């Protein structure tokens, strides 16, 4: 899909902060508010904009700390559907937060979130490994998140160190 300069600019803006009002985006892009709304609607309808999630540091919320594992999965692809069928079987589980088809030593990279180590381990052994075409799994638990989707979780650089007024 070929986008116009304005559409691309709006994507850049939303990727950085999708909570800006259309009024502000209109000013930033020198477009009318109606035009901005129209562009956003079009991009949503075409699934160029898929969703607007927030990045949340759950480790800060008492009682909501979760366990995340990244799992390398080897599978046997099926004739005609390749990896898509098994990927779909995996991504339908709500515990699974991402599934990517990878080049290299394994096939699917699967991210699983759970309330505890046990919960994730149970999911891997009882749900994931038991899928027919899954040959093997290697589970890596995330110990700490430093940067997620381009956002530094807790950086030293967020502080403005500039003087209040300068020439």
């Amino acid at each position, binding site marked *: 899909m070929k986008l116009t300069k304005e559409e691309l600019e709006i994507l850049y803006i939303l990727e950085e902060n999708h909570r800006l009002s259309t009024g502000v985006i209109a000013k930033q892009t020198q477009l009318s508010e109606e035009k901005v709304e129209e562009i956003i609607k079009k991009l949503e309808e075409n699934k160029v904009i898929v969703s607007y999630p927030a990045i949340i540091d759950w480790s800060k919320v008492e009682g909501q700390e979760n366990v995340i594992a990244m799992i390398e999965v080897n599978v046997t692809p099926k004739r005609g559907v390749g990896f898509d069928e098994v990927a779909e079987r995996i991504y339908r589980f709500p515990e699974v937060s991402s599934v990517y088809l990878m080049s290299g030593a394994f096939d699917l990279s699967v991210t699983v979130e759970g309330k505890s180590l046990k919960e994730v381990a149970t999911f891997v052994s009882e749900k994931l490994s038991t899928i027919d075409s899954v040959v093997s799994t290697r589970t890596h638990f995330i110990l700490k998140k430093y940067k997620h989707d381009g956002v530094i979780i807790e950086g030293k650089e967020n502080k403005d160190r500039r*003087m209040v007024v300068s020439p």
Partner: protein
Amino acid sequence: MIDVNQFLSKTAAELPPSGIRKFFDVAAQMENVISLGVGEPDFITPWSIRDETIASIEEGYTSYTANPGLLELRQEISNYLKNRFNIEYDPKNQIIVTIGASQALDLAFRAILNPGEEVLIIEPAFVSYPALVTLAGGKPVQVGTKAENGFKVTPEQIEEALTPNTKAILICSPNNPTGTFLNKDDLTKIAEVAIKHNLVVITDEIYAELTYDEDYVSMASLPGMYERTITINGFSKAFAMTGWRLGYVAAPEALIQAMLKIHQYTTMCAPHMLQHGAIEALRNGKDQVEEMQRSYRRRRNYIVSSLNEIGLECHTPGGAFYVFPSIKNTGLTSQEFAEQLLKKERVAVVPGNAFGESGEGYIRCSYATSMEQLQEAIIRIDRFLKSLNVKQEQVAIEK
């Protein structure tokens, strides 16, 4: 008690303090201030540049470099000026790496000015220009521009200011504090006057990468201008490297060699390890510069629309990260406006007269701050204007 003032030179004693200084002292002591008074990027230097510099320290690059800077860096600067602005400077004898563009300006004035020779300064202008001319023994001659001309100088204004002692004209595009961008036509007009009257043109192109609507044209690339142009640029604004104090000057060989003598006696060379960071900036920094440009352009559009909407008329500046709205409809002076706005609403802006007399009636707002801060600043300024009972007529935005 000895009066220590007696030890001061006449020049130092008479040098006026920067108009910004006073304001800084007040603002710095207040809390919860939203500052639109900052004359530098809100980005931190891209990591690859910092990383390269750290590595150069680890590897022991702690000695002096050649006086004009590392040849490798001068080569990169030369390539950049050729590729970006189509001007050719020999890295071996036409470029000096300096301590910020400020030192480059100092070198330029010292190299060309005889006592009493005049330099035309297009105002409103960066606060250092007149002082640098004075310190070099010259005489600064202010040429004030007008908002209705988009703060661009006209050839007539330049000719009116000429005297037999006029040696040079200093231009800065995009401009601090007005953000005014001079396109090829504007530069050509200035060039014609310079050629006609045999003037040197010193062009401060520090904001060249922060240009939002038109392609940048460098003065030295215009016909007949190369020999009489001193090109000054640096890393501060384009690469968010203000604190590094790294700039450069490029000019015909005879001028550079004169500047080099002054440079070697006064500063020896720019810091070695930082020059390695600058090489990385020129080699691999393009994408990050473009990303910053996009971000500034958005914020410029936002603040221009918003200020006009709340009744502070301002033109759309073609570059830098400043807008220069008129506050004449408030009946206050620039100084009063800035002081009251700071006290009542805790928004710091710089009074326009800090940049020369022609800046009176305007304020400089820097939009090198986050969108959240800008939005809040607009709310506060709007409230401030309402408290002054200013008739807030929505001003049509000129494009």
